[in-house]
Structures are given as C-alpha cells and as structure tokens.
C-alpha cells in the first residue's frame, strides 16, 4: 500500500495539459507529406512511388493541363514519395492535424501546364504511371451489401444542433474494429492512458453499441466484418455519430480494391468525420472526436 503511494507520488502528474491537442509532434516525427508548391514541377515521380492512391496525376491533353492530387485520406504516411522527388519538394515534418468532415477537404490539388511539366527531365508520362482512382472522385456514403439493414431515415437529417446539445458534456464511444491491422487500436487504447486521459473530457469507451453516442470505426471494412459493422450501427441509438479512424477506414488505405475488403467505412455506413493517419496519433484522434462535436476547428 505504502509502496504504491510512494511510487504514485514519485511519478507525479503524467497527464498532459488540455492544450496538447494543438501541440506539434515531437522533433523527428514523420507525420503526413507536405508538398512545396514552389518547388514541385508536376513530373509525376512521386505518383509512381506511392503505394496507394494518395498521389495521383491526370493529364488533360485537350486543356494542356496536368492535375496532381494529394489525398490524405488515402495516404499511409509511408514516406516513399519524399526520396522519389527529384526536386526535394516533398517533406515530412510531423503534420497530423488532418481530421475533416468530408473527404474533399482531405485533398490538396495542384494544376500544371502539361507542356511545362514535359520540360522537366524527370517527367513521367501518364501512361507510365500506375492507374489509380483520383481521390476527388471517391464517393461519400455508398450502399453496400447490407444496406437494407441500415435504418435509412436517419441519414442526412439535421441532427447537428441536437448532437451538440446532447453530447456537449459527455460522450460515450463504442470502438469497432472492422478489420484494421490493430495499429489504430494501439493508439485508441492510448487515449485512455494517464498521459492523454480521455475521461477528463467526458470521453468514455463503452462495451456495447447500445450505450454509445459515437462509433469510432477502424479498418478498411473486410468482407467478413461488413455485416457485423452494419449490425453494430443499427444497434446504436439515434442520434449517433460515426468517425472513420485511420486511412484504411477513410479509403481502404493500402488494402483498397482487394477482394477481401470493401474499401472504407462510408461504403457501408454513413460517416461524419474522417481522421487520416496510419495510425493517427492520439492528438489526431482527439481532434477528430472534438470536430465531430464542433468543439474543434481544423487549421
């Protein structure tokens, strides 16, 4: 007993002050890629190196334009694009504050004149680039195999104000792993550790969807978890919020297009907030949860 007290006193207060949500990542942290628009020539080398559809290029010959898109919702933060860039235009400086209410907000667009791009010695023609789906075309909620089991009347109703009023003080979250690699789970468990201490914000992880105000869903939604996710959604009382946590949950991430995955939570149930990251660090998950409650404004 006394040893426990002694240890607790020796450790002191481990919890970060509430302002941590806006703090920057520690030095050395990679985080998300950022493109320096002044240095980028639109050559397309990074598109070839990107293992997901995070970086895409489209050549519009008629308009003489090349469109380059960086979608954080598809990005797995692997860092392969930075060394591929011949102009050092891509850097990783610990960026993580990316949570957004729509997938569109997660896309950074660049437009180049195609003839200008061709002048660069590093230019890669679009036919030599991997065929990828442009992030902008990614749909929001799409009905999946079990759409008939979702109570549809709830979708699109104006619940925002009500939610703010109802969940302003305390929020009960049911975490649903829809086929993640457990990286996101590691970080979600960390939300409750003494350093982040989610409970002080009234955030409580509950054991059943029937107690939940919010579903925090991870993973690309595997074919074999699709029904379980729909059932969990249907079991949560309305009004409810759905947060897609991690790049797999946003877009399918590196597992997109696979026979065994559906490719993102919004292909199965409607999503309110998207949190990119692989996995998102605890600060990023908090930002997403606060954004869902309109308590946090993304920069």
């Amino acid at each position, binding site marked *: 007993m006394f*040893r*426990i007290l002694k*240890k*607790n006193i*020796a*450790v002191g207060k*481990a919890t970060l002050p509430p302002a941590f949500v806006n703090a920057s*990542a*520690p*030095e*050395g*942290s*990679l985080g998300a890629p950022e493109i320096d628009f002044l240095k980028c020539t639109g050559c397309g080398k990074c598109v070839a190196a990107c*293992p997901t559809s995070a970086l895409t290029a489209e050549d519009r010959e008629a308009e003489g334009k090349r469109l380059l898109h960086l979608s954080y919702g598809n990005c*797995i*933060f*692997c*860092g*392969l694009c930075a060394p591929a860039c011949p102009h050092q235009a891509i850097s*990783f400086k610990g960026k993580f504050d990316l949570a957004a209410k729509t997938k569109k907000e997660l896309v950074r667009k660049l437009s180049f004149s195609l003839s200008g791009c061709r002048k660069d010695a590093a230019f890669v023609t679009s036919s030599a680039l991997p065929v990828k789906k442009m992030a902008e075309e990614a749909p929001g909620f799409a009905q999946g*195999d079990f759409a008939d089991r979702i109570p549809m009347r709830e979708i699109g109703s104006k619940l925002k104000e009500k939610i703010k009023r109802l969940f302003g003080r305390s929020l009960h979250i049911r975490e*649903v*792993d829809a*086929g*993640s*690699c*457990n*990286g*996101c*789970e*590691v970080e*979600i*468990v*960390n939300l409750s*550790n*003494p*350093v*982040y201490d989610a409970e002080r914000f009234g955030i409580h992880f509950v*054991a*059943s*969807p029937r107690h939940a105000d919010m579903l925090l869903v991870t*993973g*690309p939604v*595997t*074919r*074999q*978890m699709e029904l*379980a996710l729909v059932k*969990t959604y249907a079991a949560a009382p309305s009004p409810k919020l759905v947060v897609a946590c991690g790049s797999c949950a946003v877009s399918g*991430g*590196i*597992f997109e*297009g*696979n*026979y*065994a*995955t559906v490719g993102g939570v919004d292909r199965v149930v409607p999503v309110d907030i998207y949190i990119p990251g*692989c*996995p998102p*660090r605890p600060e990023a998950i908090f930002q997403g949860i606060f954004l869902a409650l309109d308590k946090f404004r993304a920069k």
Partner: protein
Amino acid sequence: MKTALEILRERFGDAIRKDLKGLAKQSHILVTKNEIVEITIFLVQNLRMRFLFLSGSDTRKENGAFTLHYIFSYAQQDEFLVVETRIEEKDPSFLSLSPFLPQANWQEREIQDLLGLIPKGHPDPRRLVLHEDWPEGLFPLRKDFKFQAKIPRQKGEYAFERVEGEGIFEIPVGPVHAGIIEPGHFRFSAAGESILKLEIRHFYTHKGTEKSGEGRSPAHLLCLAERISGDNSLAHVVACAQALETLAQIDVPPRAQFLRVVFLELERLHNHMSDIAGISLDVGFSFGASQLMRVKETLLRLNEQVAGTRLLRSAVPLGGVRADISEARKQWLMEQIKKIKEDFEKTIQILWQVDSLMDRIETTGILKKEIAETLGAVGPAARASGIDRDLRRDHPYGAYKDLFFMIPVFSDGDVESRMKVKVQEIYQSFKLIYDALRAMPQGSLRGEIKPLIPSQSALGYVESPRGECFHWISTDGHGKISRWKVQSPSFANWPLIEYAVLENIVPDFPLINKSLNLSYSGNDR
C-alpha cells in the same frame, strides 16, 4: 557425419526426385506427393527437425502443377529444409499431415480455402479463412483469380461443434468485443462457470494481404508487411526485408543490422509493457495498468523521436535502415533506457507482491508442455510452458549472433509464467538495446539495391514479441514476386487458447487471452 540430405536419400531413394538450389541457409528437395507424410514423420522423429509451416502456390504456368512447400527447421545446424512437392490440377489433393502433426491443421485448411487443394484424411475439413458466404469453387490464391474481384455472397452457416448434456449452455462472444480489441468469435460451452469447450472462429479481419503483395515492388511489399499486425509492424517488415534481401543478394551493412536490433527490441518493450498492463487491468488492479501504460507511452514517444513513427513504421526499408542514430542521440537513448528500466522495475516489484493480482494469475490458464509442443507453440507462450525455443538464438539473424542475451524459460504454463517470461524478456531487451548501441560499428545505412533473382524462393524470419514470424517469398521467371506467404506467430498460437481455457472459469478468459496476447489481424491477414 552425414548430412540430413544424404540420410534422406539413403532412406527414401527414388521418392526424393532432386535437390534444388536453395538460397542462404535453405536446402530444397523435391519429393513425390505420396511420400510426403512418411518423409515428414522421418524428419520429425528421426532427425529431430521441427515442422514450421506449409505454403502453397499456384505454379501451373511455370511447371503445370500446384506447388506445396513444407518448411522445417534444423536448429542443430542452423539450417532450414524445404520439402517441395507438386500437385497436379486433375487430382487436386494431397495427404494430410494433421492426424500425425496436429499443428498442420490450420495450415492445410488455409490451403484448402485459398488454393482449392484438398488435404485427404484431414480430421476437420470445415472452412477456415473464407467464411461460409464465400461461393464454392473460387480460390483467391490461384493465378486466374483477379485480386480486385468483387465476389457475390451466398448463403451458408458455420457448424460449431456442440457439447450436449444437462445444464450445459453456450456463450457466443464476438466478433465485436467489449474492449478495444480486434474482432473474432469465441463460442464457449460451459457448465456453470466452468469452461468445457471453447471453439474459436476467426478470420474476420482477412484482408487478402498475401494476394495483394503478388506482382508488387519490394517497397510496396514492405508497406503491406508493416500493416499485417500493427503492434508487430517492425518484426514483420524486418522478416519481409530479410527474405527480399536474400532473394536479391543484398548485403545489409553492419551498422544497419545493429540499428535493426535496437528497433526490434524497442518494439518488444512496448508490446510486453502493454501485455503486462493488460493483465493488471483485467484483474482490476489499476495501479499496475496505469503505471505501465504510462511507461508504454514514454516508449512510443521515444520510438517517434528515434525512428519517426510511434509504431516504428517506415524505419526499415530494403537493404538497411532509413535514418541513423547520431552519437548525441545514442547517449540520450541510453540514458532514457536506463530511466525507463528503473521506472519499470519499481512498478513490477510492487506487482509481484499484490495478492489480488497473484491470486488471479497463479495456476490460471495452464497450457501443458505436451499440448504446446504438439500444436507447435511459439514465442513467450511456448517459453512459459517449458519449451526452450527462440529464433534469435536457434537461427541467429542480423546482429543477434554478435550479442549476448538470455532466453527466459518457465515451466508452469500458467498466466503467471507467461507474465514472468515477458518481464524477464523486458530486462533482456533493455540489455540488448544498451549493448547494441554500444557495439554498433560506424558505416553506411543501406546496402546496394539489386533486382530479385528470378524463379527462386527465400525465407526471412524474426523472433517477434509474439514469437516466430516467417515470411516466405517466391519469384517468377521475370524476378517478380509471385507468392508471399506470411506465417505469423498468432497463426501458430491461436489454437492453444482452446486448451489453455479448459476447466477455467469464464471470467478468467479475458485474462488468459491477454496473457497469450495474440493478434487477430496477424492471424487473419
């Protein structure tokens, strides 16, 4: 002294069709399919080899048949024996090893589901990886199956094994669990509180990862490997990189080898911290949980500062490591490790004296040595049941051959033993990180990158925090990746839990589960 190959040839003669050229420490033999059971029995019983895993691939284009690779460990000589056999498409069946080697059970059922080859004489031929709503006759690992295919669902129901009798009831748990853990289904048959039978039904997180890797570049494959099991990201990526480096004959510079050891042990530290914290939480002793979760957070932040990411992702590319640890950083890291060790030690000494914890973990979830041995247990679970087995010593890789460390083995097989193993391994990891940092030579961080050798196969292996992790990669005639088999420690260890819980009470199940700490995603892939 005769080599294993010579002994085999003497004993089996014509059944051994030829030796194939093997890379690194692998010897390959091609045998006829009907002799495979006899040869395996001989290898295991007479030559004391250990069956590791079975990989099947669709090589119809190359040689007109499917190929099965049975991989054995010959620890006495630090060698691996790969027994290869061909299965013709017109007779897609092979003799099952499972009646003799129960550890082959899931291995063979996986091949049945994904490749459509039937293990003849298998005691339990139900579906495993693909659930019942997957249509008949579609096999994802066959080359004529497109990986983007959208497959319609069919009706089907999994048949659980039933225990019947007065007062016996079933408790279904999952796939969505009460805690923040991965999905899987557990079906208990209980009488009162006592568990009579547990049947696990997994593969809810099957993401077709192995199929996704086919035809990809090595860099892409490593990204996929990092996402097989999030908390063991680094172990998987190093195992995968080792297989690729063997296939491309890339020399990893010594400094990079030592840095990989530092990262691998940092990963073991945060995994084991979280396991012990979880055990403490599951018995309701929150002091231990919060102290150790705090230490884990310190470790994750440390990871981010030395490697760029909290889970050590992106730290290991092909041929070496991404970033260096500077001299100043090295000193800082050594100081941090010393502090964390003192912090951990104080907490753990308190834990061992708390009766409410010890009462719950002693004699709970006993896994007998014979059962662990028969089912091919690996990692801390095996070492807590008296099986002295660790790849870092038995098949030393990277810089481990230059470092000295102990391998803790306990024999009771209960939750307490598993916790003891992990606590001792944490101390060994502190020591290994310290020693590796001190012994680290100067030099480059990445070897020269070369293309993969065509039509070859190679094995990469790492003792991950959960146990032996193997990556088996084959290339086609153009040097492209044609098959990527991942044998994660969880795939080997999940069946153990069905035995460890017997005669325990249902409320102790979370504790037993936590003490084994298996990855669902690593298992399901």
